[in-house]
């Protein structure tokens, strides 16, 4: 299991490094691209945990879907990537205090929790298991997700048609 430990640290470094680039980069498209490595690294983590389906879903939905939206959104922003973003520090003191507080809380929680260490079990048929659970124990959440997706479609359609409506040339002055 030496190798899997090595891979874990490799991907951990990849995730942290690309996340740092994402936060600190002044070019917003660089940030979006770095986010791709963060999300893909998380997928590798899931694969290391034998959660193949979750890993691939992470790739499909986050890297292949949400990140495309982010990239498009970034490129749509007026001049957002035209010039470098002016990253300057504002509200230094409150921000420092706040992040210190959060850091202390997280560390105390981390140290005081009794972590349950379970040995990794190689579960081969994850997909079938997920399929059965979705249709039995998690039926209600599953259907709620369906309704949620329907709402998302309706929302996207409304957004699309409204933006298109604004784009039409003014007729009053013509």
């Amino acid at each position, binding site marked *: 299991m030496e190798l899997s430990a090595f891979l874990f640290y490799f991907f951990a470094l990849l995730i942290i490094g690309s996340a740092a680039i994402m936060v600190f980069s002044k070019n917003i498209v660089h940030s979006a691209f770095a986010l791709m490595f963060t999300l893909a690294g998380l997928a590798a983590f899931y694969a290391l945990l034998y959660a193949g389906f979750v890993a691939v879903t992470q790739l*499909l939905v986050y890297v292949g879907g949400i990140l*495309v939206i982010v990239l498009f959104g970034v490129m749509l922003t007026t001049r957002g990537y035209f010039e470098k973003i002016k990253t300057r520090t504002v509200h230094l003191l409150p921000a420092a205090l706040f992040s210190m507080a959060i850091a202390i809380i997280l560390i105390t929680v981390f140290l005081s929790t009794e972590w349950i260490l379970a040995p990794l079990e190689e579960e081969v048929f994850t997909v079938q298991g997920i*399929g059965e659970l979705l249709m039995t124990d998690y039926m209600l959440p599953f259907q709620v997700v*369906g309704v949620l997706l329907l709402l998302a479609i309706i929302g996207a359609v409304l957004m699309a048609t409204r933006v298109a409506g604004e784009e*039409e040339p003014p007729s009053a002055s013509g």
Partner: protein
Amino acid sequence: MLAEYGYVLMFLAIGCVFTAVTLLVAGLLRPNRPSPEKLMTYECGEEPVGSAWIQYNHRFYVIALMFLVFEVEVVLLFPWATVFQDMGWYAFWAMIVFVSLIFIGFLYELGKGALQWDKPQPQIPRYVEGVGVVPHHWKPESEVADVVGQPAANVSGSTQDTATE
């Protein structure tokens, strides 16, 4: 099972290393004599006007949004598709209901024409009495104050500024 993902990872590594090595070797072999003309962005022989990094059609964004919603649906189809024959009628029809829900959303989207890529109204400059030829989104001065965005003349002016920088 971890080994199976390991193979995938190795293939990924081979792919990346292979391209990197190819590009590196090519970098050692080829000449490098840049000149301002060579390094200019291609625009059919003209001096490039402005940057290509502009706002573009919002419909790309809507496509991506719709894609995400359907992608989640497709991913949820797969686990069910592997086991549906061993399940009771209840689970079977629950999935059909789920798919139908999405399909209704899809029909709604088709009806509203959210993904219509057909040509919009042509937006051509027009002639206004006393002003001259104006862009399609031009408005008389009295109306400009109400518009949230910047007036038309200003926007094009700032684009040209950045181009000359």
